[in-house]
């Protein structure tokens, strides 16, 4: 089509309505002019018009020829095809309902899951130029440590010496107590450099945000709060600006409120950050800014415009080498200290990516199965329509025209199904999100936007093609030659359609197998984890939490120092033990499987330590998680003390420091020696006294039921205080009943203390599996659906075959074939198809299962149980689905069957 012709075609497409009326005017003018001439020749007006019309010929067919001559005829045909399609759909309400319902489900599930994938994995972070934001990690690969702390001079190196950053800031995340509002509240707080907001490109909702002009060497006295806290604690009062908010007992001035959608780009395990403060990290209360004082954590930075990630990484690697060379005492060579950057987006989604991708894979498989099923139904219908098609072909309809009509019908179906799917997605998205595990970030950004709608449309069109193409091509090719010959009733199961339908059924079964294997592996993993021994007895244990706060000004800290905190702990335990129904109470700094942010202040992080009789160089790679517990902790959890002793009330300040290690620590660091009586020292600080190991306990799954082998060192809370205080109570009472009393007791000690997450230990373990349960349940549900659809497919195919071949069955039986033989004939067909599908599915599953490796625990990707049970189960279902129609075949009465034809 050249340009002129395209323009003319386009004119028709766009102004079709007007051109139609112009064509009409032109034709009328012609006929009337001719009539006028005829009147002049002596005819009556009426006779002249009649004559003129006859001479002109069929007006509509000429108009049609005009449309064809400019290539817009198909537009009109489309209209009639659509009308025809609608009529057909209305004529088969059963088929239409099944097709649209399954499509709505398939497309709806795809749309909903994709909207989540889009928000979490695909859409850019909601900050200015998000592609330039990176996470900065300081690593010591030589001693196997990642994400080690860094110092103020190292931060300065990033900002000035490296030359690749526009800005960089450490991020301190952690609990903070907000007091002075209605109820003391523990919130997530963030402390950063002054450039944090300008780096992200945030504009406040009201007031202002701190910036470089506010710089002070210590902590700033200003705070910025989130929209959520502003509404919750202050009723969205604009007069909050200039007011004082007490955060961890520091009085700070509120200078601004963040916009509603703003989210701190950090982990989400414990909710969203609501209080933002800044610091200069170089003056009191920070240690002197020298290279060895590594107190900063969790760097993020913004690259300069035009600097690529690879360039920046190369420069940072080179700079790290220079620094190692310039300051050999600060960077021991064996540690191989280095700097690594990653796109911020990737680090935020981290471990939820495989889960979301598996879910997306599952819904795509489902929509495939749905469309194969519909293809089968359509093909059955197409076979029934062979006669019609043959007649139309014989009357001169072009094969292309027929394919187009069939495709229009299936496109119509897929678009209706797609629309229903989008409605389904919109309706169920809220429901799905409610069940999404809370460790998935950015869920508040999930919405059905145009990208999601485009995806839904794409999926609908693809499904339409999948289920429309086969019957369409079949109708055009096979019909003319075969239908007229194959007998008046159109014995639909001709070899050609038959083979096509067999292929559809086999692929449907294969897809079902893949989904079932995936679901099987995930469910096995979940069952395994549920049966895991967490290393303690979680039943009849209630937990509660408080946070004592870390004031910026240590002089205002009521729980300062070891003795101050120990006094608090003892009083807390006395009160807890006095609550009626509580058998025994204990304190820990880290509840099992609550998986706190390891970067958070007080979070459960791997810490380096030294062992007394090991040389310093090799002691660099020693690290373990340090958990502070009160003497009765192991007793409350009923965990097993393997050797040595537990902590006692006497393990307090001024007494020799003691520690209890778990089996993992023992195996890792004293594989051959007896650890009891040996001495370790945290932070490898030579001025600190040694801590003696006095006991060994069985491993407690402190980091998660699916995490093994992390070494832990327990120390006495009376000797090593923690601001994070979690209470564990052995009691037969439910958490809800105890909560008011626990709150009352804690707040009568200090009305400024928040009490949060009062739940049973079983609930904690349960919640830690939320993400796995969600994906296992969802994929399991889809697998069930897939089996249902596949068995409907087999059943439908065989039932159709039986009805189409009833005459043949009649003849066979009349000639002496037994019912067993007839049964076998059809059962065999089903079994062969099922067998092929299952084998194909197993082969594909086996070669792709390892993609799911990171989602599995305790189950290998080629778990023999799953790979045996799934085929057997599906085979049984397939045999049943084939048996029902096969049995009906044996009920055929030869006399009736023969008479019918």
């Amino acid at each position: 089509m050249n340009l002129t012709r395209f323009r003319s075609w386009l004119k028709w497409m766009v102004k079709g309505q007007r051109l139609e009326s112009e064509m009409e005017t032109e034709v009328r003018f012609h006929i009337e002019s001719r009539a006028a001439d005829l009147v002049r020749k002596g005819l009556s007006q009426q006779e002249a018009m009649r004559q003129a019309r006859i001479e002109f010929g069929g007006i509509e067919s000429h108009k049609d020829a005009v449309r064809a001559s400019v290539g817009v005829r198909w537009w009109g045909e489309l209209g009639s095809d659509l009308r025809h399609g609608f009529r057909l759909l209305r004529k088969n309400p059963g088929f239409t309902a099944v097709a649209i319902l399954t499509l709505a489900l398939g497309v709806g599930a795809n749309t909903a899951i994709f909207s989540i994938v889009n928000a979490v994995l695909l859409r850019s972070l909601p900050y200015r130029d998000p592609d330039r934001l990176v996470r900065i990690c300081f690593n010591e690969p030589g001693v196997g440590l990642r994400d080690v702390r860094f110092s103020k001079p190292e931060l300065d190196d990033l900002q000035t010496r490296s030359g690749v950053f526009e800005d960089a800031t450490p991020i301190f995340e952690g609990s903070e107590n907000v007091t002075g509002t209605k109820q003391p509240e523990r919130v997530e707080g963030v402390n950063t450099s002054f450039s944090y907001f300008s780096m992200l490109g945030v504009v406040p909702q009201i007031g202002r945000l701190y910036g470089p002009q506010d710089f002070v060497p210590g902590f700033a006295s200003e705070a910025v709060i989130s929209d959520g806290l502003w509404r919750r604690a202050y009723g969205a009062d604009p007069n909050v600006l200039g007011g004082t908010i007490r955060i961890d007992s520091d009085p700070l001035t509120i200078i601004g409120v963040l916009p509603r959608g703003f989210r701190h780009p950090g982990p989400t395990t414990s909710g969203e950050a609501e209080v933002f403060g800044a610091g200069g990290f170089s003056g009191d209360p920070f240690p002197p800014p020298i290279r060895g004082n590594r107190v900063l954590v969790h760097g993020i930075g913004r690259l300069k415009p035009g600097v690529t990630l690879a360039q920046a990484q190369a420069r940072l690697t080179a700079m790290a080498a220079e620094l190692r060379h310039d300051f050999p005492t600060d960077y021991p060579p064996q540690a191989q200290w280095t700097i690594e950057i990653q796109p911020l987006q990737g680090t935020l989604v981290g471990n939820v990516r495989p889960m979301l991708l598996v879910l997306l894979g599952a819904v795509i498989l489902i929509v495939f199965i749905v469309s194969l099923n519909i293809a089968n139904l359509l093909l059955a219908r197409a076979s029934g329509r062979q006669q019609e098609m043959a007649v139309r072909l014989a009357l001169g309809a072009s094969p292309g025209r027929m394919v187009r009509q069939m495709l229009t019908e299936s496109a119509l179906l897929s678009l209706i199904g797609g629309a229903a799917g989008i409605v389904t997605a919109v309706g169920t998205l809220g429901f799905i999100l409610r069940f999404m595990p809370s460790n998935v970030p950015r869920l508040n950004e999930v919405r059905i936007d145009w990208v999601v709608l485009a995806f839904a449309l794409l999926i609908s069109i693809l499904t339409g093609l999948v289920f429309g193409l086969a019957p369409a091509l079949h109708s055009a090719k096979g019909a003319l030659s075969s239908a007229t010959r194959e007998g008046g009733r159109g014995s639909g199961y001709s070899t050609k359609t038959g083979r096509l339908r067999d292929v559809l059924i086999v692929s449907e079964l294969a897809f079902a197998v893949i989904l079932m294997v995936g679901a099987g592996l995930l469910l096995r993993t979940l069952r395994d984890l549920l049966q895991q021994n967490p290393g303690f007895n979680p039943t009849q244990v209630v937990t509660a939490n408080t946070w004592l706060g870390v004031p910026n000004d240590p002089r205002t800290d009521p729980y300062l120092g070891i003795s101050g905190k120990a006094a608090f702990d003892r009083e807390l335990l006395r009160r807890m033990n006095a609550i009626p129904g509580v058998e025994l109470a204990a304190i820990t700094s880290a509840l099992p499987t609550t998986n706190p942010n390891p970067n958070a202040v007080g979070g459960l992080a791997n810490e380096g330590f030294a062992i007394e009789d090991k040389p310093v160089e090799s002691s660099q790679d020693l690290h373990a998680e340090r958990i502070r517990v009160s003497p009765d902790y192991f007793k409350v959890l009923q965990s097993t003390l393997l050797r040595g002793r537990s902590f006692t009330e006497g393990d307090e300040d001024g007494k020799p420091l003691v520690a209890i290690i778990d089996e993992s620590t023992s195996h890792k660091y004293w594989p051959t020696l007896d650890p009891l009586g040996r001495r370790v020292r945290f932070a490898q600080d030579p001025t600190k006294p040694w801590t003696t190991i006095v006991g060994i306990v069985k491993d407690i799954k402190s980091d998660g039921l699916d995490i093994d082998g992390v070494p832990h060192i327990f120390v006495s809370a009376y000797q090593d205080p923690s601001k994070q205080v979690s209470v564990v109570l052995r009691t037969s009472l439910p958490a809800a009943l105890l909560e008011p009393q626990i709150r009352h007791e804690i707040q009568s000690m200090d009305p400024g203390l928040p009490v949060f997450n009062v739940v049973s230990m079983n609930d904690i373990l349960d919640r830690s599996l939320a993400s796995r349960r969600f994906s296992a349940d969802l994929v399991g549900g889809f697998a069930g659906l897939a089996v249902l659809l596949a068995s409907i497919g087999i059943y439908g195919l065989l039932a159709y075959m039986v009805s189409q071949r009833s005459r043949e069955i009649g003849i066979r039986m009349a000639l002496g074939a037994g019912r067993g033989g007839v049964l076998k004939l059809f059962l065999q067909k089903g079994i062969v198809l099922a067998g092929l599908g299952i084998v194909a599915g197993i082969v594909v599953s086996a070669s792709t299962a390892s993609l799911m490796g990171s989602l599995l625990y305790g189950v290998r990707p080629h778990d023999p149980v799953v790979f045996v049970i799934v085929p057997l189960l599906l085979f049984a279902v397939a045999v049943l689905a084939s048996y029902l129609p096969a049995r009906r075949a044996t009920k055929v009465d030869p006399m009736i069957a023969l008479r019918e034809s």
Partner: protein
Amino acid sequence: MGKGIDLLQGTLDMLILKAVSLGPLHGYGVLLRIQQISGEQLEIQQGSLYPALYRLEHQGWIASEWGESDNNRKAKFYSLTATGRRQLHSETVKWNRMASLIASILQTTPEEI
């Protein structure tokens, strides 16, 4: 219309181009002009004129414009474009060659072979 010669397949386009080359015409005018210059000898299915006119316009050989007819009615007038003129010329050359070729073939006698 009396008895005339049926139009040869594929020649209508050429006749239309020739007709409008003599000056802008509306559809009915094209018909009259062709009949006039053919001495009322040609039999044209009137309706089939229009698909041809639209096709020629679609190809850019003729252009159309709405105007007033002799009897003061709104009518669409067709005129030849520059490319149409070239097309008419090459069609004419081709036709003449073809016609003389066919004529010479038909005039062949057995002696000439």
